[in-house]
């Protein structure tokens, strides 16, 4: 346990700092923007796709390849769908003359 923490100290620092950044960023958002914000955050966690690309790129046997293919497809759906949906929502907030 202690060893694990020590080996990953840098990442743990990063996690703690990011928790605070995340809280600060959302702190004072008007409720009007809650839905687009949730949707935007939804697209950002699509970053998980990078993990799926890495496993896919290193897969050697057929089952891993198939599972990896699905993982990349699902991750892409999350990223592309997430950002496009958010953009569509926000398009409607554009300034009226």
């Amino acid at each position, binding site marked *: 346990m202690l060893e694990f923490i020590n080996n990953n100290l840098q990442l743990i620092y990063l996690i703690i700092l990011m928790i605070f950044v995340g809280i600060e960023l959302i702190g004072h958002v008007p*409720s*009007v923007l809650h839905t687009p914000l949730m949707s935007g955050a939804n697209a950002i966690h699509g970053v998980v796709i990078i993990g799926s690309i890495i496993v896919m790129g290193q897969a050697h046997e057929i089952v891993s390849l198939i599972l990896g293919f699905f993982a990349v497809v699902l991750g892409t759906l999350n990223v592309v769908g997430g950002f496009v949906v958010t953009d569509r929502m926000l398009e409607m907030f554009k300034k009226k003359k």
Partner: protein
Amino acid sequence: MQQYILQIIYLIGSVTFILGLKYLGNPSTARKGNLIAAFGMGLAIFGTIFLYTDSNGEHLGNLGFIFGALLVGTVVGWLAAKKVQMTAMPEMVSLFNGMGGACAMLISIIEFRHLTSTHTADAMADGVNFFSQIPKGFLFTIIIGMVIGSVSFSGSMIAWGKLSGNVKDKSFGKQQFINIGLLAVILGLAYWDIMGESANTITIFYAILALSLLYGILFVLPIGGADMPVVISLLNSFTGVAAACGGFLYDNKVMLVGGILVGSAGTLLTIVMCNAMNRSLLNVLIGNFGGGSAAASGASAGATGTIKEVTASDAAILMKYAKKVVIVPGYGLAVAQAQHVVHDLELLLESEGVEVKYAIHPVAGRMPGHMNVLLAESNVAYDKLVEMEEINAEFSTTDVVLVVGANDVVNPAAKTDPSSPIYGMPILDVENAHHVIVNKRSMKAGYAGIENELFYKPKTSMLFGDAKKALNELVSEIKALG
């Protein structure tokens, strides 16, 4: 060299996520923020494909499959996101969130398979229990990522089904205890597996997978549809944490930053939403709402009486000669796609010299801000949408309130009936106005599944029918009045 460039790309990606989230919090910069984050994501994805090297300095293989999968996902995701109706937006977010969760789940499964196939061969030779040799932290990260990812996946699918009306609220007695028990079993099995004390590590791993999927279903199933925004927001932050587990697994900073940012921001957003409904997160989580409302709808069956129906022409007269009309939009407006007609009605009344405003309850519709998005689509001016605290002071000087497809957010039981499941939720005090016209399709209860005594008040008259049709009639009746 390439490895260094990739790390810088990840650094840029992380900064774009932070900036993107920051800009998303302000109406004037929100769109830019989304694009910045999307740009950073694209950079990180292509950087990974071309520049990633493993510990032996080898590049990623299977590029054809990777690009094929990217293409499939992009085309499907793009079309789905472009085609979806504005009203179905919440479902869509839930669906995409589930995809992210499933992606995290699959990564863990593949990594586990990889782990077992490499270590089994070594261990066979040595004749020892191979799992005792795997770094515990590594296995822990894989299993936690899988548990969170699969709960998020199956939970999001149920939330999606509920919002689109395919899945009904279901709860059975003592379900909270079953859920907590199930969670304890999952955690216990995970601990057992990580410690590597069992010979059946692989079987246990898949048992954890199955139970996690089941837990996601049971977790969301009893929660009332009105709470789905909160649940989606929470599952959203779960997926963030699952993505961060991947970051830990691959020592990948951009995954870690993106995942944790969404995890913490999403959790805070969830709590803010709960506060808007004046309920604690715990209260939402243990599924009190769904179970409680079933009992409460029986209890408040006393809220019956006579209702008064009004014709479109009478309602038209009432509104045309009013000084001030406040429109309360709800989910019914969204379902009927009546956002354009309601804007026509607003313009028509204004041309008759009537002051028109919209009263926006923070949780009207199926998501906070749902109504703002919808009405903005039909070009309703931003400053006409008044938030709850502000408009509540104005109802006493309002002649006519037109409630379009909203129910729970105007239910006085939230203030008067301590046994009501929505008791304590701030509501729009429409009953202070001189007249209340409620447009609904039928007398059916709202999403919380409870009766609304507002409909039986002497001031209230009901205008039954589909929101779009009813509003169209109103518009033509007002025009006919000249």
